[in-house]
């Protein structure tokens, strides 16, 4: 007991010089330096966003005069060039269709599966959960060539024998959804496990079947986090580039990131930096807008999988 009392602060012997120095560093200098570093990081991120926005409104002549020079006039023409000439208008439409149709597929398959896995506490369920987790470690690069071969041959077959026409982007949606399912199932399973099952048991006693319980009780209860996870899945689709480059050969049919890349490659001939930055804003702007609106929830959703 006595040793315990001796440790309370008002009985502590005067600090040695060495301790004072270590307190000065450990409590003040190092934390303050780190805090300053973090604020610099924040300032850099915000500054970069502002700089991209400003550059997208400068004429290419102004841009080449100096990276930090303020625009002499607002060059809306950049956006017109990106939207029309560089095909961003078309690409935006393609991207929206791609994002929404893969979202429907991914969530349509993942939601029931995750709920089922979370509520079945047997061995099969844990094996299947591990099986889905394996898919997170499976790089898309392993399946690129099979996807390419299948997509090309299905397209060929449909054109020759069935419909007379085919869009490779159908394959893009289907295959992208398949690769997104493992993560979505995994995270949603972790979330459904954290929900108490008392509500469902009550409904079950009243004679409700699993499908009714899932639709009328679980989905409404889980609406917030499920929306968040859907948004994160959608953000992934919005930014997807690799699969687009492999599966959609025609540049005019590709999504926004590929359109930006294409414009970037063409820069050595056009030198239209202003339009390139307008393209960056068209690609990034919607993401930033969604983040301003739902940022806190997106951050909560992104941390869901790792903590469970």
């Amino acid at each position, binding site marked *: 007991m006595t040793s315990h009392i001796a440790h309370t602060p008002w009985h502590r012997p005067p600090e040695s010089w060495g301790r004072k120095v*270590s*307190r000065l560093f*450990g*409590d003040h200098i*190092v*934390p303050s330096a*780190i*805090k300053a570093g*973090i*604020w610099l*990081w*924040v300032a850099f991120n*915000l500054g970069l966003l502002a*700089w991209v926005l400003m550059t997208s409104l400068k004429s290419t002549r102004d841009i*080449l005069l100096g*990276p930090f020079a303020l625009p002499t006039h607002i060059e809306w023409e950049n956006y017109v060039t990106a939207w029309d000439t560089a095909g961003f208008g078309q690409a935006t439409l393609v991207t929206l269709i791609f994002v929404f149709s893969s979202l429907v597929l991914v969530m349509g398959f*993942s939601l*029931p599966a995750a*709920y*089922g896995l979370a509520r079945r506490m047997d061995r099969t369920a844990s094996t*299947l959960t591990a099986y*889905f987790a394996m*898919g997170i*470690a*499976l*790089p898309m*690069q*392993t399946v*690129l*060539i*099979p996807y*390419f071969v*299948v997509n*090309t041959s299905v397209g060929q077959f449909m054109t020759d024998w069935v419909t007379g026409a085919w869009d490779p982007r159908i394959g893009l949606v289907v*295959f992208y*959804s*398949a690769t997104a*399912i*493992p993560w979505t*199932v995994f995270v949603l399973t972790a979330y459904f496990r954290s929900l108490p099952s008392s509500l469902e048991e009550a409904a*079950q006693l009243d004679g409700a079947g*699993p499908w009714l319980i899932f639709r009328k009780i679980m989905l409404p209860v889980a609406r917030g986090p499920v929306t968040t996870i859907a948004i994160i899945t959608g953000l992934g689709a919005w*930014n997807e*580039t*690799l699969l687009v480059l*492999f599966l959609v050969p025609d540049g005019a049919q590709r999504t926004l*990131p590929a359109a930006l*890349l294409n414009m*970037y490659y063409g*820069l*050595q001939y056009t030198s239209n930096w202003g339009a390139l930055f307008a393209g960056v804003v068209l*690609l990034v702007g919607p*993401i*930033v807008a969604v*983040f301003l609106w739902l*940022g806190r929830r997106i951050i909560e959703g*992104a*941390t869901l999988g*790792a*903590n469970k």
Partner: protein
Amino acid sequence: MTSRKGGLRAFIWPAVLVYTLLFVVPAIYGAAISLFDWSGIGTKATFRGFGNYLFILTDDAFRQSFINTLVLAVSGGILIFLAAFCCMAVLRQMKGRGFIRSVVYLPNIISPIAIGAALSFALDSRGALNQVLSWIGLPPQSWLGPDLVFRCIIAGLAWSAAGFYVILLMSAVDGIPEDLYEAASLEGVTKVQAFRMITLPLSWDVFATCAVLWVIGSLKVFEIVLAFTGSANSGVPLSARTVAIQQYMAFNDPSGLPHLGVVSAIGVLMFLLSLVLVGLTRRLTRREALEL
């Protein structure tokens, strides 16, 4: 309960079926293709056994790309977790911590193509960074030249990815009870020591998960390299090629006849490498679990 379980089976199997048929089976098909020399539908496939793998492992460009990817995984990981640890040490009690987390996380959900395009313009020989350097009297550097570009890519990637690990680790830090820190502070423990003695041990599980996620992600790095080196006429310089880039270049073979077997074999090697590195990471981060 049996009838309920039977009902739930119908919830699970469609996703299992889709995932198996459209992701797992293609991976196996890819492994099969990797054993052949094949240029696509309508051409003849010749069995090569492990010939494609031997070719990849002895080819200088491929070897370089594997080394680059490992360098990126290790040095990017060091940068990211150094930044994340710094945040864990002080962010808990900073003013505006929610705002800081959001701003730091934002680059993570922005297309790497956009990040690469904007950053590489800032790093251009007449770009923003060299302008800043000239203000403080330092000589300009050729940041996008073959010597430095890969370091810039690693830094850019670490910058854009770090926020994700910051928010993951901070969500673990938020779960640590405040009175632990108060008790430690009364005992004369400094904030830096508190990080080492309290914060890090109690969030170690999440750190281990983060390390695995980073390793998986770092092996697939692709878009940001394309966007950093896109304006170069000669394609991606050897010094900046990751495995994924090397695979893409093999697929877009200038002869117009890609060796699909080789391209597939790279994909299989990436999966194996990811398994090995995940196993290694889990081993390195294994500790006795700490519970409060």
